[in-house]
């Protein structure tokens, strides 16, 4: 696929220098903070302010990382972020694919009305309802628990987006597959779980990526619902650490490296899936 495209479109000579210069410039600007982050994370406190700046610190101070881990419960932040993002992803995939299948394939009473209602709320920023949500969660005694961070995204804008993506995908699956199964006496639940879901792997992959990233990066909700340090997610814990450590940049950068690296490693291995999944949602619109 790649090779054929390459051959067909070719590599026109004119204008390419500009393209490469632009790509190179943007890439360099984007990579600089990462290089600087890693470099600083290994510096001694005094070397952070040294001029001219050292790219490769001497001596290299690995102890920064240990120091961060002693200062803040980093492993807890990490664990909280991972398990919340996983649960949100599982819940979103399950409920969105169920609803998406029904909206695409089961002709039930009120279907178009309900779908339009869902769709029209997709653009509502969740900051708009944050205040009643806070009071509601306080009534339920869910402040300082992970429940709002798990349940709200599943049924909020993220979930509705999921319904939309899944419905679009199911609409494109040939009806004959389903009809054959129905003649064999399969129930809707069985058709959904044994025929439709396995077929929807590409759409599910896209949804997983989007949902996981959104939850992993969410900052506003944890800021509102969590005060207990042990319960904080990575972004919230890091922002608190920023306030506390002031300009201990070497420690802040060590913390940033630890927060970034695992996800980037996953990204490098799943790069193709990631980028193609993202593109797919754009085209499906």
């Amino acid at each position: 696929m790649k090779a054929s495209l390459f051959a067909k479109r070719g590599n026109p000579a004119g204008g390419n220098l500009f393209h490469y210069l632009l790509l190179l410039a943007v890439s360099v600007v984007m990579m600089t903070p990462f290089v600087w982050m890693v470099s600083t994370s290994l510096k001694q406190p005094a070397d952070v302010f040294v001029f001219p700046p050292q790219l490769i610190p001497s001596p290299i101070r690995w102890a920064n990382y240990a120091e961060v881990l002693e200062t803040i419960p980093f492993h807890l932040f990490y664990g909280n972020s991972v398990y919340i993002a996983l649960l949100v992803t599982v819940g979103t995939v399950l409920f969105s694919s169920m609803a998406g299948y029904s909206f695409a394939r089961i002709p039930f009473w009120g279907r178009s009305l309900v779908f339009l209602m869902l769709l029209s709320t997709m653009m509502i920023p969740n900051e708009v309802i944050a205040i009643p949500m806070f009071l509601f969660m306080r009534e339920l005694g869910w402040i300082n628990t992970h429940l709002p961070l798990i349940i709200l995204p599943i049924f909020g804008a993220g979930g509705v987006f999921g319904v939309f993506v899944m419905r679009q995908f199911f609409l494109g699956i040939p009806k004959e597959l389903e009809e054959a199964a129905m003649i064999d006496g399969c129930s809707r639940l069985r058709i959904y779980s044994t025929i439709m879901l396995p077929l929807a792997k590409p759409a599910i992959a896209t949804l997983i990526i989007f949902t996981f990233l959104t939850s992993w990066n969410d900052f506003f909700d944890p800021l509102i619902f969590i005060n207990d340090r042990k319960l904080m997610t990575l972004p919230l814990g890091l922002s608190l650490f920023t306030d506390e450590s002031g300009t201990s940049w070497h420690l802040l950068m060590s913390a940033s490296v630890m927060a970034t690296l695992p996800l980037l490693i996953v990204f490098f291995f799943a790069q193709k899936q990631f980028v193609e999944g993202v593109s797919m949602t754009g085209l499906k619109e």
Partner: protein
Amino acid sequence: MTTLETIKSEGPGRPFRRKARKTRSLNRGDHLAGWLFVLPMVLGFVLLLLVPLMMALYMSFTDWPLLGEAKLIGFENYRTIAGDAEFWRVLGNTLYFAAGLVPLNIILALLLAIPLSKNIRGAGFFRTLIFIPVMTSLVVWSIVWKYMFATDSGFINQLLRMIGITGPAWLYDTRLAMPVVIVTSLLKNVGLNMVLFIAALQQVPAQLYEAARIDGAGRMRIFFRITVPMITPTIFLTLMMTIIGSLKVFGQIYVMTQGGPSGSTKVLVYNIWERAFKLFEFGYASALAYVLFIITLLLTLAQWQMRKRWVLNES
């Protein structure tokens, strides 16, 4: 069902009416099954979105302190907002951020996507690099850039010092703080729109370009007469997502400037958060939140209208 009917019934305004009527008699159990499948989502939607949305509207008409009784005060909050210099400043800052970020984001994303969509040598490599910030946590990204722009030890000012320039105190300068936030937000998110544009550009049939070239059309003409019209749906999608995203900007402001210096980067969501969860003025903050809601609503409606007129080849 004929192809034409399928297209019609699945067009934007009326998703399935026709299809539903045709198959309704097939299976009566479907009504129940259909509802059971959507039930969790619909229940969640009503309880966790619709009800709070109504509740927020109600709260915006009250004086609602953290403890003690809520009091209905009619349009008082909205009147206060309209007369509040801080609100207009915050709204202005939000629009400044959006007006700075959105065009830069769309143009840069398109400029990057054009070569990368052609599978030039190294396309995969550049695409990955430029997409990495999208994958990075916004809080981490903002912390690192806050450090990059730090006055003494920051990379930018160290770089300037090497060529003999004393750099300014970027994030502590009322004129410079917002541009810094805009540029770092641009770098964070441009990769997402770029990837969407790459996908759209690769869908444009190559024959169109060939035909135009045979007819002797120049580069610019081809771009504006073929490329742009062919990818208008994607341009609209990215435009809307970027505009609404920029109206909700919060994380980078919280981390990098806390709304300062002297309020020069205080944006709408930051103001809502501050009023609601620092000062506990729930009524007033709800009215502010509703202003945000109405702005997004108007934008969405405007988008639907414009789409009808401008977007080509929507199937």
